[in-house]
């Protein structure tokens, strides 16, 4: 259970990214966050694992206060929270396998990992993760030799290495060809069915309808909607995206 209470983030330049956002995510949910670019979706996800420090408010995860965790506590919390990114965020010059193994750094022996030495179990785990996302044959290639869809699957494999209880996905399909969106989201759906809570920001409404169990809408850092995907009708849509918005379907592109 993740509980966000009165979360506010004001950047040093005065931009208010989140204003008093509160919600709860029960275990096993596939929560989708929607909203325009700049509405605070990325900030919200990064506050949950404290890649960004919230200005005020509290975040509890299984009754542990994430917002006041010490540096070593936050590292222990982070290793159970997988994260995948719009730009994949792979180390391009490193091999696919090294990228996947880096997902295990939070668990690894700090000294051995600095020498680049990995236990056999971790290597096997990495190869199994790559097998699971269907690119085991690319393990020893440089990450930047892969296509966008393949790189995002490496990102998922890296998150799998953490044995995550919670998965944060920041626009995981926005940099991909729309036809690849389902192939990536199906992996997230599968993980969700295995019991991993997923919080995912998305752009396309038809994807929201297809995958979300619940939806939060953000507008200018304020929560303007919370409910089931089916509840997003034309009026709700205009509320979240503004009057001029037109719905675009991933499938129609």
């Amino acid at each position, binding site marked *: 259970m993740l509980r966000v209470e009165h979360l506010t983030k004001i950047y040093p330049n005065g931009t208010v990214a989140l204003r008093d956002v509160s919600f709860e995510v029960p275990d096993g949910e596939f929560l989708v966050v929607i909203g325009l670019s700049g509405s605070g979706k990325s900030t919200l996800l990064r506050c949950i694992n404290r890649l960004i420090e919230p200005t005020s408010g509290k975040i509890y995860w299984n009754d542990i206060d994430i917002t006041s965790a010490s540096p070593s506590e936050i590292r222990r*919390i982070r290793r159970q929270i997988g994260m995948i990114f719009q730009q994949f*965020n792979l180390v391009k*010059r490193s091999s696919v396998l090294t990228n996947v193994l880096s*997902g295990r*750094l939070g668990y690894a022996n700090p000294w051995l990992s600095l020498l680049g030495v990995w236990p056999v179990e971790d290597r096997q785990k990495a190869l199994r993760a790559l097998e699971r996302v269907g690119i085991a044959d690319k393990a020893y290639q440089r990450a930047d030799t892969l296509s966008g869809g393949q790189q995002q699957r490496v*990102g998922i494999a890296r998150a799998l290495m953490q044995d995550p209880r919670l998965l944060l996905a920041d626009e995981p399909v926005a940099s991909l060809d729309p036809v690849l969106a389902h192939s990536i989201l199906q992996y997230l759906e599968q993980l969700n069915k295995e019991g991993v809570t997923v919080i995912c920001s998305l752009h396309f409404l038809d994807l929201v309808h297809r995958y979300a169990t619940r939806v939060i809408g953000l507008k200018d850092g304020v929560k303007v909607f919370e409910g089931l995907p089916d509840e997003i009708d034309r009026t709700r849509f205009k509320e979240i995206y503004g009057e001029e918005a037109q719905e675009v379907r991933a499938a129609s592109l």
Partner: protein
Amino acid sequence: MKNTEHLIRLRRIFTQVVEAIVIGLALYASIQVTQPDFVKLITAAPKARQVLRELLAPDLFTRESEVVTVGVALPVPCGSAPEDEGRASGPRLEVEPKCAAERETVVVRGEELGKGVQVTLRWRLPDGNTLGIQRLVTDAEGNFEVRVQVRPIVATKGGQSARIEAEVTLPGGRITPSQTLRDVTDAMFVTIFMALLATTLGTLLAIPLSFLAASNITRRGRVGALVYYLVRTLLNLIRSYEPLVMATIFALIVGFGSPFAGILALVIVTTASLGKMFSESIESIDPGPIEAITATGANRVQVILYGVVPQILPDFLSFTIYHWDINVRISTIIGFVGGGGIGDYLSKRINAFEYSKAGTALLAIILVVWALDFLSAQIRKKLI
């Protein structure tokens, strides 16, 4: 409206005139101060020719003239001493007959001495003194034959017979590097290794400093910002000192002409310059992977090793090799102010008016700098 336009144009012309006057005054002042004497470039031509002729004739090789001495014993009279069996092949002397009485004439033959070679024929007397016979030149087969009269002075003394010897000077023996070339090579290696050592030490110092001077790594919180500005200022301060000035100071401390002075100066210059270049390379990396690896629960050092190092390694290697190249160049000059190596050699030869030796050093510098430039460019091309 028309008036203001006019005014603006007038003001622009006025500014341009003032600028022209200022530049003109500055140029006039610099000529007054430095007193360039362009006429001298022409009047000094004879001197220039003399200096350049020597500089352009570097002392590189010496021809080793090999001197071979062959000999044969001649007992006088017969039986006073053992006869010489002689060798069957190779450069050798033969005498016919193998012994003689005083005032007889013998035939001396030289074999396989090389064609057209100068031969000095002489007696080696029993007491060790020599007595010249004649100088001659071998024929096309490398042989000679000459009749020699046996004089009483060559008679055997105390069972020791006199010998006939031929000293053969083989022209154009092996071509060997001159002493100058060997000295220059030694000094050049000192310079190259000086630069190598300085670059290595400088790089080792620059790496930690560059991370401290990279805003995306260090500038977090108040302490981080303080460290960042301190290191950055330190690097900028050091970089404003010329390596030559620093080498002079170190030469005063650790001894003039010692490579160590040059190394110290180069280490500091390299640290400052690479520290700056490295930190800029760190600042330009993709922050995405750092974010991703931080999100896995990795600690700060793990993030740097897995997220930062792979991104900066090619840059770091490339900059380091490039700086070695620069350091070789600087260290050739640093010798002039007491830093040791090829520059030290060059300045000493010039002060001693040994321009031909100086020319050898100059040639070596040109070749080495050119070769390193090429080499470092090739390696760097591979890295990127």
